[in-house]
Protein backbone atom coordinates (compact mmCIF):
# COMPACT_ATOMS: atom_id res chain seq x y z
CA UNK A 1 0.00 0.00 0.00
CA UNK A 2 2.71 2.45 1.05
CA UNK A 3 4.71 1.47 -2.02
CA UNK A 4 1.85 2.49 -4.27
CA UNK A 5 1.29 5.81 -2.49
CA UNK A 6 4.95 6.75 -2.50
CA UNK A 7 5.35 5.82 -6.14
CA UNK A 8 2.17 7.68 -7.15
CA UNK A 9 3.14 10.89 -5.34
CA UNK A 10 6.63 10.86 -6.83
CA UNK A 11 5.77 9.82 -10.37
CA UNK A 12 2.70 12.04 -10.81
CA UNK A 13 4.77 14.94 -9.46
CA UNK A 14 7.56 14.25 -11.93
CA UNK A 15 5.17 13.80 -14.86
CA UNK A 16 3.39 17.07 -14.09
CA UNK A 17 6.78 18.77 -13.76
CA UNK A 18 7.89 17.58 -17.21
CA UNK A 19 4.54 18.54 -18.73
CA UNK A 20 4.44 22.03 -17.24
CA UNK A 21 8.15 22.82 -17.32
CA UNK A 22 8.50 22.98 -13.53
CA UNK A 23 11.55 20.73 -13.58
CA UNK A 24 13.82 23.20 -11.76
CA UNK A 25 11.25 23.70 -9.00
CA UNK A 26 10.96 19.95 -8.52
CA UNK A 27 14.71 19.58 -8.11
CA UNK A 28 14.60 22.27 -5.44
CA UNK A 29 11.52 20.66 -3.91
CA UNK A 30 13.37 17.39 -3.61
CA UNK A 31 16.17 18.81 -1.45
CA UNK A 32 13.71 20.99 0.42
CA UNK A 33 11.61 17.99 1.31
CA UNK A 34 14.56 15.93 2.50
CA UNK A 35 15.82 18.85 4.56
CA UNK A 36 12.52 19.52 6.27
CA UNK A 37 12.13 15.79 6.93
CA UNK A 38 15.29 15.96 9.02
CA UNK A 39 14.38 19.27 10.64
CA UNK A 40 10.92 18.14 11.67
CA UNK A 41 12.11 14.79 13.01
CA UNK A 42 14.93 16.45 14.97
CA UNK A 43 12.50 19.04 16.31
CA UNK A 44 10.08 16.35 17.43
CA UNK A 45 12.79 14.51 19.37
CA UNK A 46 12.36 17.00 22.23
CA UNK A 47 8.63 16.57 22.83
CA UNK A 48 8.44 12.83 22.09
CA UNK A 49 11.39 12.07 24.37
CA UNK A 50 10.03 14.23 27.17
CA UNK A 51 6.45 13.03 26.90
CA UNK A 52 7.29 9.33 26.77
CA UNK A 53 9.47 9.85 29.86
CA UNK A 54 6.47 11.30 31.69
CA UNK A 55 4.23 8.53 30.36
CA UNK A 56 6.60 5.96 31.85
CA UNK A 57 6.06 7.57 35.26
CA UNK A 58 2.28 7.37 34.74
CA UNK A 59 2.64 3.71 33.87
CA UNK A 60 4.87 2.91 36.86
CA UNK A 61 2.53 4.80 39.21
CA UNK A 62 -0.13 2.20 38.41
CA UNK A 63 -2.54 4.54 36.64
CA UNK A 64 -3.51 1.74 34.23
CA UNK A 65 -4.54 -0.56 37.11
CA UNK A 66 -6.39 2.29 38.81
CA UNK A 67 -8.44 3.08 35.75
CA UNK A 68 -9.06 -0.61 35.05
CA UNK A 69 -11.39 -0.90 38.05
CA UNK A 70 -13.59 1.86 36.67
CA UNK A 71 -13.65 0.39 33.20
CA UNK A 72 -14.62 -3.18 34.11
CA UNK A 73 -18.41 -2.69 33.84
CA UNK A 74 -18.04 -0.87 30.50
CA UNK A 75 -15.80 -3.64 29.18
CA UNK A 76 -18.36 -6.29 30.19
CA UNK A 77 -20.97 -4.43 28.18
CA UNK A 78 -18.68 -3.98 25.18
CA UNK A 79 -17.47 -7.60 25.15
CA UNK A 80 -20.48 -9.80 26.01
CA UNK A 81 -18.87 -12.87 24.41
CA UNK A 82 -15.81 -12.82 26.70
CA UNK A 83 -16.22 -14.53 30.11
CA UNK A 84 -15.60 -11.98 32.90
CA UNK A 85 -12.93 -14.12 34.58
CA UNK A 86 -11.03 -15.05 31.41
CA UNK A 87 -7.50 -13.55 31.12
CA UNK A 88 -8.64 -11.93 27.86
CA UNK A 89 -10.92 -9.61 29.83
CA UNK A 90 -8.03 -8.41 32.01
CA UNK A 91 -5.85 -7.68 28.99
CA UNK A 92 -8.70 -5.90 27.17
CA UNK A 93 -9.37 -3.65 30.17
CA UNK A 94 -5.68 -2.85 30.60
CA UNK A 95 -5.45 -1.99 26.89
CA UNK A 96 -8.50 0.29 27.16
CA UNK A 97 -7.05 2.05 30.20
CA UNK A 98 -3.70 2.60 28.52
CA UNK A 99 -5.41 4.04 25.44
CA UNK A 100 -7.57 6.32 27.54
CA UNK A 101 -4.51 7.65 29.37
CA UNK A 102 -2.74 8.23 26.06
CA UNK A 103 -0.09 5.63 26.88
CA UNK A 104 0.32 4.48 23.28
CA UNK A 105 3.58 2.64 23.94
CA UNK A 106 2.01 0.62 26.74
CA UNK A 107 -1.28 0.09 24.93
CA UNK A 108 0.12 -1.86 21.97
CA UNK A 109 1.71 -4.77 23.90
CA UNK A 110 -1.41 -4.98 26.09
CA UNK A 111 -3.61 -5.01 23.00
CA UNK A 112 -1.53 -7.76 21.40
CA UNK A 113 -1.77 -9.75 24.65
CA UNK A 114 -5.56 -9.33 24.50
CA UNK A 115 -5.58 -10.58 20.89
CA UNK A 116 -3.56 -13.63 21.93
CA UNK A 117 -6.05 -14.45 24.70
CA UNK A 118 -9.04 -13.83 22.41
CA UNK A 119 -7.53 -16.18 19.86
CA UNK A 120 -7.76 -18.97 22.49
CA UNK A 121 -11.52 -18.40 22.56
CA UNK A 122 -11.71 -18.40 18.77
CA UNK A 123 -13.25 -21.53 17.18
CA UNK A 124 -11.98 -20.65 13.68
CA UNK A 125 -8.41 -19.48 14.02
CA UNK A 126 -8.10 -17.62 10.72
CA UNK A 127 -11.30 -15.59 11.13
CA UNK A 128 -11.81 -12.64 13.48
CA UNK A 129 -14.29 -13.03 16.35
CA UNK A 130 -16.77 -10.34 17.35
CA UNK A 131 -14.70 -9.50 20.42
CA UNK A 132 -11.61 -9.01 18.24
CA UNK A 133 -13.51 -6.63 15.98
CA UNK A 134 -14.66 -4.61 18.99
CA UNK A 135 -11.10 -4.45 20.35
CA UNK A 136 -9.87 -3.18 16.98
CA UNK A 137 -12.67 -0.62 16.76
CA UNK A 138 -11.62 0.79 20.15
CA UNK A 139 -7.93 0.81 19.22
CA UNK A 140 -8.27 2.50 15.84
CA UNK A 141 -10.49 5.28 17.18
CA UNK A 142 -8.82 5.87 20.51
CA UNK A 143 -9.86 8.78 22.69
CA UNK A 144 -7.01 11.30 22.88
CA UNK A 145 -6.53 13.63 25.84
CA UNK A 146 -3.07 15.04 25.03
CA UNK A 147 -2.03 15.01 21.34
CA UNK A 148 1.63 15.50 22.30
CA UNK A 149 3.21 15.11 18.84
CA UNK A 150 0.90 17.69 17.27
CA UNK A 151 1.49 20.16 20.10
CA UNK A 152 5.22 19.70 19.50
CA UNK A 153 4.95 20.17 15.74
CA UNK A 154 2.85 23.32 16.16
CA UNK A 155 5.41 24.74 18.61
CA UNK A 156 8.15 23.98 16.10
CA UNK A 157 6.35 26.15 13.55
CA UNK A 158 6.05 29.01 16.07
CA UNK A 159 2.33 28.68 16.77
CA UNK A 160 1.01 31.32 19.17
CA UNK A 161 -0.83 28.67 21.18
CA UNK A 162 0.37 25.16 20.31
CA UNK A 163 -2.02 23.55 22.81
CA UNK A 164 -5.11 25.21 21.33
CA UNK A 165 -6.05 21.98 19.58
CA UNK A 166 -6.38 19.92 22.78
CA UNK A 167 -10.11 20.49 23.25
CA UNK A 168 -11.08 20.05 19.56
CA UNK A 169 -9.02 16.84 19.47
CA UNK A 170 -10.73 15.50 22.59
CA UNK A 171 -14.12 16.39 21.12
CA UNK A 172 -13.39 14.81 17.71
CA UNK A 173 -11.96 11.61 19.22
CA UNK A 174 -14.90 11.30 21.63
CA UNK A 175 -17.32 11.45 18.70
CA UNK A 176 -15.20 9.04 16.65
CA UNK A 177 -14.98 6.54 19.53
CA UNK A 178 -18.74 6.68 20.07
CA UNK A 179 -19.23 6.16 16.34
CA UNK A 180 -16.82 3.21 16.37
CA UNK A 181 -18.76 1.52 19.19
CA UNK A 182 -22.10 2.09 17.44
CA UNK A 183 -20.76 0.94 14.05
CA UNK A 184 -19.25 -2.14 15.66
CA UNK A 185 -22.61 -3.05 17.22
CA UNK A 186 -24.41 -2.38 13.96
CA UNK A 187 -22.17 -4.61 11.86
CA UNK A 188 -22.05 -7.28 14.58
CA UNK A 189 -25.83 -7.63 14.43
CA UNK A 190 -25.88 -7.57 10.66
CA UNK A 191 -23.21 -10.25 10.36
CA UNK A 192 -24.41 -12.54 13.14
CA UNK A 193 -27.95 -13.32 12.00
CA UNK A 194 -28.83 -16.70 13.45
CA UNK A 195 -25.56 -17.46 15.24
CA UNK A 196 -24.51 -17.29 18.87
CA UNK A 197 -22.24 -14.79 20.62
CA UNK A 198 -19.01 -16.52 19.72
CA UNK A 199 -20.34 -16.69 16.17
CA UNK A 200 -17.96 -17.39 13.39
CA UNK A 201 -20.46 -17.30 10.54
CA UNK A 202 -20.70 -14.24 8.37
Amino acid sequence: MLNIIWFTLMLSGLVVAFATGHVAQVTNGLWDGAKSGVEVAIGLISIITFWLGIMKIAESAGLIEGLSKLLRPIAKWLFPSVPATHPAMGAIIANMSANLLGLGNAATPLGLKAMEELQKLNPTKDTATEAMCTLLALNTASLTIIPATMIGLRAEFHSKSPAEIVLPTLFATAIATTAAVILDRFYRHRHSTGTTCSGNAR
Partner: protein
Amino acid sequence: MIAQISAFALPLSLSLILVAGVIRKVPLYETFVLGAKDGFQTAISLIPNLIGMMVAVSVFRSSGALNLVIHALSPVFHILRFPPELLPIALLRPISGASSLALVTDLFKHHGPDSLLGKIASTMQGSTDTTLYVLTVYFGSVGVKNPRYAVKVGLWSDLVSVIASVFAVYLIIGK
Protein backbone atom coordinates in the same frame (compact mmCIF):
# COMPACT_ATOMS: atom_id res chain seq x y z
CA MET B 1 -12.40 30.03 28.79
CA ILE B 2 -12.10 27.34 26.14
CA ALA B 3 -8.56 28.40 25.32
CA GLN B 4 -7.83 28.12 29.05
CA ILE B 5 -8.98 24.48 29.20
CA SER B 6 -6.74 23.56 26.28
CA ALA B 7 -3.79 25.46 27.73
CA PHE B 8 -4.23 23.82 31.14
CA ALA B 9 -4.59 20.24 29.86
CA LEU B 10 -0.88 19.47 29.51
CA PRO B 11 0.46 21.13 32.69
CA LEU B 12 -2.46 19.68 34.65
CA SER B 13 -1.88 16.10 33.45
CA LEU B 14 1.80 16.59 34.17
CA SER B 15 1.09 17.59 37.79
CA LEU B 16 -1.35 14.71 38.30
CA ILE B 17 1.15 12.17 36.93
CA LEU B 18 3.99 13.52 39.09
CA VAL B 19 1.81 13.53 42.24
CA ALA B 20 0.57 9.99 41.48
CA GLY B 21 4.19 8.95 41.01
CA VAL B 22 5.23 10.42 44.38
CA ILE B 23 2.29 8.79 46.19
CA ARG B 24 3.11 5.39 44.68
CA LYS B 25 6.80 5.90 45.56
CA VAL B 26 7.99 5.67 41.95
CA PRO B 27 11.66 6.67 41.54
CA LEU B 28 10.60 9.66 39.44
CA TYR B 29 13.74 10.73 37.69
CA GLU B 30 15.09 7.25 36.89
CA THR B 31 11.70 6.22 35.51
CA PHE B 32 11.53 9.39 33.43
CA VAL B 33 14.94 8.73 31.89
CA LEU B 34 14.01 5.12 31.16
CA GLY B 35 10.86 6.14 29.29
CA ALA B 36 12.60 9.05 27.60
CA LYS B 37 15.18 6.64 26.16
CA ASP B 38 12.36 4.77 24.42
CA GLY B 39 10.95 8.08 23.23
CA PHE B 40 14.31 9.07 21.81
CA GLN B 41 14.50 5.79 19.88
CA THR B 42 10.97 6.33 18.56
CA ALA B 43 11.77 9.86 17.42
CA ILE B 44 15.01 8.77 15.73
CA SER B 45 13.33 5.91 13.89
CA LEU B 46 10.93 8.50 12.49
CA ILE B 47 13.69 10.22 10.49
CA PRO B 48 14.04 7.88 7.46
CA ASN B 49 10.25 7.62 7.18
CA LEU B 50 9.76 11.33 7.36
CA ILE B 51 12.50 12.10 4.82
CA GLY B 52 11.03 9.62 2.35
CA MET B 53 7.55 11.02 2.72
CA MET B 54 8.54 14.69 2.85
CA VAL B 55 10.45 14.33 -0.44
CA ALA B 56 7.45 12.70 -2.13
CA VAL B 57 5.07 15.35 -0.81
CA SER B 58 7.47 18.15 -1.74
CA VAL B 59 7.88 16.82 -5.31
CA PHE B 60 4.12 16.46 -5.56
CA ARG B 61 3.60 20.06 -4.45
CA SER B 62 6.45 21.86 -6.22
CA SER B 63 5.55 20.27 -9.57
CA GLY B 64 2.09 21.80 -9.32
CA ALA B 65 0.39 18.39 -9.10
CA LEU B 66 -1.04 19.11 -5.64
CA ASN B 67 -2.60 22.35 -6.87
CA LEU B 68 -4.12 20.54 -9.83
CA VAL B 69 -5.80 18.07 -7.50
CA ILE B 70 -7.01 20.82 -5.16
CA HIS B 71 -8.41 22.88 -8.04
CA ALA B 72 -10.16 19.88 -9.51
CA LEU B 73 -11.80 19.10 -6.19
CA SER B 74 -12.64 22.55 -4.88
CA PRO B 75 -16.10 22.98 -6.52
CA VAL B 76 -17.42 19.84 -4.84
CA PHE B 77 -15.74 20.48 -1.51
CA HIS B 78 -16.82 24.09 -1.19
CA ILE B 79 -20.42 22.94 -1.15
CA LEU B 80 -19.55 20.63 1.75
CA ARG B 81 -17.56 23.40 3.48
CA PHE B 82 -14.63 20.99 3.61
CA PRO B 83 -11.33 22.66 2.65
CA PRO B 84 -9.94 20.68 -0.35
CA GLU B 85 -6.37 21.26 0.88
CA LEU B 86 -7.12 18.79 3.68
CA LEU B 87 -8.27 15.91 1.50
CA PRO B 88 -4.79 14.42 0.93
CA ILE B 89 -4.21 14.38 4.70
CA ALA B 90 -7.56 12.72 5.37
CA LEU B 91 -6.88 10.09 2.71
CA LEU B 92 -3.36 9.19 3.86
CA ARG B 93 -3.91 9.34 7.62
CA PRO B 94 -5.42 5.82 8.03
CA ILE B 95 -2.64 4.30 5.92
CA SER B 96 0.56 5.92 7.11
CA GLY B 97 1.17 8.26 10.04
CA ALA B 98 4.48 9.48 8.61
CA SER B 99 3.01 10.43 5.22
CA SER B 100 0.12 12.42 6.70
CA LEU B 101 2.55 14.03 9.14
CA ALA B 102 4.63 15.07 6.13
CA LEU B 103 1.54 16.61 4.54
CA VAL B 104 0.64 18.47 7.74
CA THR B 105 4.21 19.81 7.95
CA ASP B 106 4.00 20.95 4.33
CA LEU B 107 0.69 22.67 5.06
CA PHE B 108 2.16 24.41 8.16
CA LYS B 109 4.99 25.73 5.98
CA HIS B 110 2.63 27.31 3.48
CA HIS B 111 -0.33 28.35 5.65
CA GLY B 112 1.07 28.43 9.19
CA PRO B 113 -0.10 26.37 12.19
CA ASP B 114 -2.50 29.09 13.40
CA SER B 115 -4.43 29.43 10.14
CA LEU B 116 -7.85 27.79 9.99
CA LEU B 117 -6.37 25.12 7.73
CA GLY B 118 -3.48 24.61 10.13
CA LYS B 119 -5.79 24.16 13.09
CA ILE B 120 -8.05 21.68 11.32
CA ALA B 121 -5.05 19.74 9.98
CA SER B 122 -3.57 19.57 13.51
CA THR B 123 -6.83 18.28 14.93
CA MET B 124 -7.28 15.73 12.14
CA GLN B 125 -3.76 14.41 12.51
CA GLY B 126 -4.14 14.15 16.30
CA SER B 127 -7.60 12.58 16.18
CA THR B 128 -7.19 9.66 13.81
CA ASP B 129 -4.99 6.64 14.10
CA THR B 130 -3.23 4.72 11.35
CA THR B 131 -6.20 2.36 11.17
CA LEU B 132 -4.89 0.01 8.48
CA TYR B 133 -1.53 -0.31 10.22
CA VAL B 134 -3.18 -1.14 13.56
CA LEU B 135 -5.42 -3.72 11.87
CA THR B 136 -2.43 -5.35 10.17
CA VAL B 137 -0.36 -5.53 13.35
CA TYR B 138 -3.17 -6.80 15.61
CA PHE B 139 -4.60 -9.42 13.28
CA GLY B 140 -1.16 -10.35 11.95
CA SER B 141 0.12 -11.07 15.46
CA VAL B 142 -2.37 -13.95 15.93
CA GLY B 143 -2.58 -15.10 12.32
CA VAL B 144 -6.15 -14.02 11.62
CA LYS B 145 -6.60 -13.74 7.84
CA ASN B 146 -10.25 -12.74 7.63
CA PRO B 147 -10.87 -9.51 9.59
CA ARG B 148 -14.62 -9.59 8.74
CA TYR B 149 -16.22 -6.18 9.35
CA ALA B 150 -13.30 -4.69 11.37
CA VAL B 151 -11.91 -2.81 8.34
CA LYS B 152 -15.29 -1.25 7.57
CA VAL B 153 -15.79 -0.13 11.17
CA GLY B 154 -12.27 1.33 11.31
CA LEU B 155 -12.54 3.30 8.07
CA TRP B 156 -16.06 4.57 8.70
CA SER B 157 -15.04 5.85 12.11
CA ASP B 158 -12.04 7.53 10.49
CA LEU B 159 -14.45 9.40 8.24
CA VAL B 160 -16.50 10.40 11.28
CA SER B 161 -13.30 11.58 12.94
CA VAL B 162 -12.33 13.73 9.93
CA ILE B 163 -15.75 15.40 9.79
CA ALA B 164 -15.78 15.82 13.58
CA SER B 165 -12.33 17.49 13.42
CA VAL B 166 -13.50 20.10 10.92
CA PHE B 167 -16.66 20.66 12.94
CA ALA B 168 -14.81 20.83 16.27
CA VAL B 169 -12.41 23.52 15.05
CA TYR B 170 -15.22 25.65 13.61
CA LEU B 171 -17.23 25.19 16.81
CA ILE B 172 -14.56 25.45 19.52
CA ILE B 173 -11.78 27.66 18.17
CA GLY B 174 -13.42 29.36 15.20
CA LYS B 175 -11.34 31.44 12.85
